[in-house]
């Protein structure tokens, strides 16, 4: 924030060009993948390019040598750009594990997973951090806003880790909070916000680095139905108006019905796939 005011005064002294140069370089610091989709996007496939491309994903947990627990038994999943997909399933069906896998929080034991053109199987820990930072926006059931950090600063966090300049961070964070109609509360701390407000901030935060995918894990699970409705409307709006790719993990069949495609997970397998009400 100190640098924020400093760069502003610099701008006035030495002209705008230099400042623009600096911010451009900050943009260049983002890994190559940021430029890749632009190139691929030119391919005029009717259904859009593939964002999530999973082939025969197996996840086993090793609990001691003789006991291994296979949670996912060969998942095949393709999600295209602009899709709104719901993954439903009861607890124990492997939903969480699949979400961790999609969200680059974990690596599969077997299989192939490409997220927006990046091979996840060979990614190192640091690469996974960069992928989470730039390609995925998380929305959690428990909001997970960082405590004692204002709504604005929370939205800035992913951009901070993407090494964006403080000035651009603040500007973009304000814009994003305006999208979720939270700009008047951007100085509030998380404990001064209601659940629905927290979740809106979390959605703004998920969009911070303009990710290829928004991954929402039970986003309305802790909210009353009216507030949950509001949150779902925001997702629909983002999907329709901004063409955001959204994967929604939920156990609520009603919410799933609204999406474009519903995948049913049972015992670590995708047992059903059908079109939802939201299919274009």
């Amino acid at each position, binding site marked *: 924030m100190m640098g924020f005011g400093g760069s502003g005064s610099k701008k006035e002294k030495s002209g705008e060009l230099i400042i623009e140069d600096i911010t451009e370089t900050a943009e260049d610091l983002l890994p190559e993948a940021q430029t890749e989709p632009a190139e691929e996007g030119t391919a005029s496939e009717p259904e859009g390019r593939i964002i999530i491309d999973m082939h025969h994903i197996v996840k086993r947990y090793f609990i001691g040598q003789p006991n291994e627990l296979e949670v996912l038994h060969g998942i095949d999943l393709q999600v295209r750009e602009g899709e709104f997909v719901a993954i439903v399933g009861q607890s124990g069906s492997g939903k969480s594990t699949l979400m961790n896998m999609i*969200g680059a929080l974990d690596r599969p034991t077997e299989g192939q997973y490409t997220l927006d053109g990046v091979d996840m199987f060979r990614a190192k820990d640091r690469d996974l951090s960069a992928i989470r930072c730039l390609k995925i926006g998380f929305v959690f059931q428990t909001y997970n806003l960082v405590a004692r950090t204002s709504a604005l600063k929370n939205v800035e966090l992913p951009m901070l880790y993407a090494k964006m300049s403080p000035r651009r961070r603040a500007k973009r964070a304000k814009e994003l909070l305006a999208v979720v109609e939270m700009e008047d509360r951007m100085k509030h701390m998380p404990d001064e916000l209601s659940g629905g407000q927290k979740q809106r901030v979390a959605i703004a935060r998920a969009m911070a680095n303009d990710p290829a995918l928004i991954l929402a894990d039970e986003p309305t699970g802790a909210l009353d139905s009216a507030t949950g409705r509001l949150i779902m409307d925001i997702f629909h709006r983002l999907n329709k108006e901004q063409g955001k790719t959204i994967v929604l993990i939920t156990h609520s069949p009603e919410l799933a019905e609204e999406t474009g495609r519903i995948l049913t997970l049972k015992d670590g397998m995708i047992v059903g796939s059908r079109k939802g009400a939201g299919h274009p």
Partner: protein
Amino acid sequence: MMLFFENISLAISSLRANKVRALLTMLGIIIGIGAVIAIVTVGNSLTLSISDSMSSVGANNITVGLRQRENEEETTDSGAVFRDYRNQKQPKEEDYFTDEMIEAFRETYPDEIADISISESLGSGKVTKGEDYANVSVVGVNDGFFTANDLTMLKGNILSGKAMEEGRDVALVSDYFVDNLYNGDPGKAMGETVEITIGKKYYTYTIVGVYEYQAMSFSMTSKKDTVTDVYTPVKSVQRKTHNTSGYSSFTVVIKTAGEAQAFIPKINHFFDRYYRKNRNFELSTFTLESMVSEFTGIMGTVSTAISIIAGISLLVGGIGVMNIMLVSISERTREIGTRKALGATNASIRTQFIVEAIVICLIGGMIGIVVGVGGGIIGAKALGFAAAPSLSSILISLIFSMVIGVFFGFYPANKAAKMNPIDALRYE
């Protein structure tokens, strides 16, 4: 660098959230750093004022005296070697430096020796005048004494000429003496005859001059009770002690500044001819330089001891910081998980918590410095000398507290950095 400032403001806000806890954590560091700074401040003040008062002794002076030879060791049946302190001897008249020796010495090195100062004590006593009294120490001096010691005369002149040669019973007294007995009027004291009681004997002197007493800056006695010197011709003292054969010590004033230490071998060489055969005594010399180095040596030992104590205290403080960091990290597991999900690398998590530990230690260190300087100044004032906080020790303390932060912050920070994001996110 961007993350650096973010981390500092993060650390400060997380300390604010737990003010009491942060303060308690810092206590070890505060006490450790505070104790060191306080003691160093007092020590520094002491060193300054002592070397100050020592420099008034004169850098060009070499004091030559006698000391008992250490060859009187006896071996017991068990083989242990001990010095027999029952045989402690005082130099007798035949051991003393004689006028002839000193004169011969002066003639041997006319280019090096500026003067030779002799002072023989008659003893300490008291002068009473009605209700008033003054504590004095009667010292017989020669002409050279006034070369070696720069006295500021407030009234009258230094002792010289006939009075010196004949050893008349005349005396120079201090302004303290005049303050105590003559209401601070030197003119009234001049020409007065005073009776000094030393032990059970009385000595009568006529005051011929008043000099300005150089107060020791670390003196703890009141002005009224301070013992000041009464200077009288050395021959007068010798007559009273019935010792006319020589002196137990004398001071050589050399001409070239800074050569005092180098002149000592020549002194030893010259007097060897007189003392080689003396079974009991040998020559001892000391200079301001050797005094200072001896003093510095003592101060060095003291500060080593302090450093060890401070080190232990800082170690304990550092462990406290590590402990609270571990607690803080376990409390903030979900935050760490969230940050990782948002793209924080292990390195940025690690940096965040190391910076937090450094901030705790630095703030603790700064409070410790304030406490220490305050305590040191109070201590120095209480002992009666000018306080002199040491800037270098303040800087070293700051750097040291940062190092503690890095050292004791690393393990918890690394633990946070290595957390599995899935487990961290799910942590209740």
